[in-house]
C-alpha cells in the first residue's frame, strides 16, 4: 500500500510519514502541493492524504489533478478547520473520500487507511 502525504506543515507531514514508515507503510511526503503531482505520476499511490487548506493549490483542487494521473487513487482529507467549506465542497464531490479533523489520532488515521486499502483491493479483486 503506497501512501502520498501532502501538507504545507512540513513538521507535521514529515513526522506523520516517519511514523508510518516505522510501521512499514510505504509513505511518501511533500510539503509542496506542486511536487505532489510529480510524485503521483511517478509512483501512482493507492491513497493520498491531503490537507485541504494549503497555499497556492488547495487539497480539493489537488485531488482533481491527482485523479487525472491516477484514477484509482483514494483520498483522505485532513482539515484543521472542520468548517462549512469542508461539508459543502465535500458534498458536491463524488467518489469515496473521508474528512478527518486535525489533530487526528494516529490510530484513527491508520485504521481509516486500512479500511480504504482493504476496500480498494477487495474491489480490484472483484472487478
Amino acid at each position, binding site marked *: 500500500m503506497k501512501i502520498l502525504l501532502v501538507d504545507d506543515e512540513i513538521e507535521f507531514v514529515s513526522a506523520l510519514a516517519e511514523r508510518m514508515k*516505522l510501521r512499514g507503510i510505504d509513505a511518501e511526503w511533500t510539503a509542496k502541493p506542486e511536487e505532489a503531482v510529480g510524485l503521483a505520476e511517478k509512483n501512482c499511490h493507492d491513497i493520498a492524504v491531503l490537507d485541504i487548506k494549503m497555499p497556492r493549490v488547495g487539497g480539493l483542487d489537488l485531488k482533481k489533478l491527482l485523479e487525472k494521473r491516477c484514477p484509482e487513487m483514494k483520498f483522505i482529507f485532513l482539515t484543521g478547520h472542520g468548517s462549512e467549506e469542508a461539508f459543502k465542497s465535500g458534498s458536491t464531490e463524488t467518489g469515496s473520500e473521508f*474528512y478527518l479533523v486535525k489533530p487526528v489520532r494516529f490510530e484513527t488515521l491508520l485504521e481509516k487507511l486500512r479500511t480504504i486499502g482493504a476496500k480498494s483491493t477487495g474491489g480490484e479483486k472483484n472487478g
Partner: protein
Amino acid sequence: MGLIDHIKPIFWEQGDSSRGIYAYRFNFSRIWKLTVWLTLAVTVIPLVVMTAIDYRVSQAAMESEILLRTTRLVSNTRRSVAYFLDERMTAIDFVIQNDPYRSLKNPVRLAQILTHLKRSFGGFLDLGVIDDQGIQIAYAGPYALSGKQYREAGWFKEVAQKGIYLSDVFLGYRNIPHMVIAVKHEHPPDGFYVLRATVDMNRLNNLLMDLEVGGDGDAFLINRQGVLQTPSRRHGGVLEQIALEVPPYSEHSQVRQILQYTKGPLVIGYAYINSDTPFILMIVKEKDRLMGAWKQSRTQMIGFLFGSIFVISLVILGGSTFLVNQIYLADKRRVMACHQMEYANKMASLGRMSAGVAHEINNPLAIINEKAGLMRDLLVMDQKCRNDPKLVGLIDSVIAAVDRCSDITRRLLSFARHSGAPAKELDLAEVVREVLGFVGKEAEYRCLDVTVEKAEDVPMILSDRGRLQEIFLNLINNAFAAVSDGGKLGVAIEKYDESKVMLRFADDGHGIPKEDLEKIFEPFFSTKIGKGGTGLGLSITYGLVQELGGSLKVQSEPGKGTTFTVILPICLERPCSEASDGGRSGENLSIEPEAANENSTRR
C-alpha cells in the same frame, strides 16, 4: 391597580432608557396628547361655535317672529274693538240727529228706538234722555229711572263739556259689566240735551275671548288706571286691578317684553283705542310657551352636540391610541431588529473568530501530536528505552493534553458551524454535555452541582445542533447567574409524548418574582440591566426554541429556584422518514467526531 392603569396603553410609560439606535425614536405619550388635543380642537371647536351661532340666530328669529305676530294681532284687534265702540257711538249719534227733541222725550218712541237698536246692533240695555239740568226726562229700559237727577255725576259734566262721553266699565244696579255712551245735542236757543245709552259688554268680551292669541295668551281691555274692563284668563276678572304696569301712551300698536315676572317672561302687545276712549287693549303671552317649540329643538340640538362630542372624542381617543400604538410597535420592532442584527453579527463574528482560532491552534496541535507520537514510536521501538515507563508516560500525557486541546477546539468549531447546517440526528444528553463543557470550569470553581439525567426511552432527535447549543448555553448561563456558589443545576431529559421530548433545567437559585414571570420572554426585559444584561437572552432563546418547532416554559418560586422546560419535537418540521432519507443521501461524507462522544463528560 386603578381603572386608569388598566386602560392605559402600553406605550404610555415607555421610558427612554437606551441611547443611539436602540432608543425609541418618538415620545409616544406626547404624540398621543398632541394628536388628541389637536384633533379634538379642530373638530369640537367649530362644532360648538356653529351650534352657538345657530342657537343665537334661531333664538333671535323666533323672538322677532313672536313680536311681529303679536304686533299684527294687536293692531287687528284694536281695529275691531275701535270699530265696535265707533259703531255704537255712531248709532247713538244717528238717533240724536234723526229724532227731534220732542220725539225723544216720548217714552214710547224711545222704547221703539231701543228695540230697533237692540235688533240692529245688539248690546244696548237702555236709553235715556237727560236735559241740560241733569234730569232724566225720558227713559226706556228695564228700570224705573225716569226723573233721576244726574247733574252732579262726573259723566254728565264731561259730556256737557266735550259733547260725547264714553264711560269705563262698571257694574251698576244691574250687577253686570256695562258701559255708558252719552252724546250731547244742542237745543237752541237756550240749552242742550243728552242721549245716554248703556251698552252691555258681552259682545266685546266674546270678541276678545274668542281671539286666537296662542301661547296661553290673554286679550283684554284695561282703563288708564289699570283696571280690567273685560275678563281675562290669567290676570283677574272684570274691574280688578291688574298686576302689570299700565303701558305709556302710544298712538300705534306696541310690543314689549317683560323678562322679570313671577310666572316667567311675558310678551305684551298693547294699543290705546283712540285717544278719546279710556280703553287700552292688552294682549299678554307667556314667552316660555311661545318659545316651547324652539326650546324643544334647542334641547335636541344641544343633545346632538353633546352626543357628537362624545362620539368624536371616543373615535379620536380610540384612533389616536391605535395609531400611536402602531407607531410604538413598529418602533419596537425596529429596535428589536437592531438588537437582533447586532446579536446575529456578534454571533457570526464570534463564530468566525472561534473557527479561525480553532484552525490556527489545530495545526500546531497536530504537529505536537505527531511529534510526540513519533517520539513514543521511537521510544517503544528502541530496545534500550522500551522499558522506561517514565518517558513513555510523559509522552502519553503530552498526547492526552493534545487530546484535551483538540476537544476544546472541536467544540469551538461545532459552535461556530451552526448556521445553515442540515438537521441531524442528535443525542440531547450529548449536546447538553457538550455545552456544559464550555462552562464546566465556572461550575468547578463555584462548586456547582450540575447533573444530567436522561430517561432511557428518550429517542435521538432530528434537530439543529447549533441552535440547540445556543439554547442550552443561554439557559445554563441563566441558571448559573441565578444560583449562588455551591448551588445545583439539574438537567432532566424525558420523553414528553410520542412526537416530543422534554428537557428541564432546574436550578435552586433565587427564583423569579411572580410579576416578572410573565415578562421574562419579552425583549428588553432584564433585571440585570446595567450589569451586562441586554434583556435579550431569554427572548432570543424563546425565538430559537420556536424556530425549532418547540416551546419554552418557565416555572419559578422566589427563593426556591426556577425550572425552564424546553419541549422539542423529535422530528424537525419534515416527517422523520423523509428527513432520515435526506440524511442518508449524504452518507458518503462523514465527519468523524473522533472520540468526542466518550470524552465530552460533564465537569
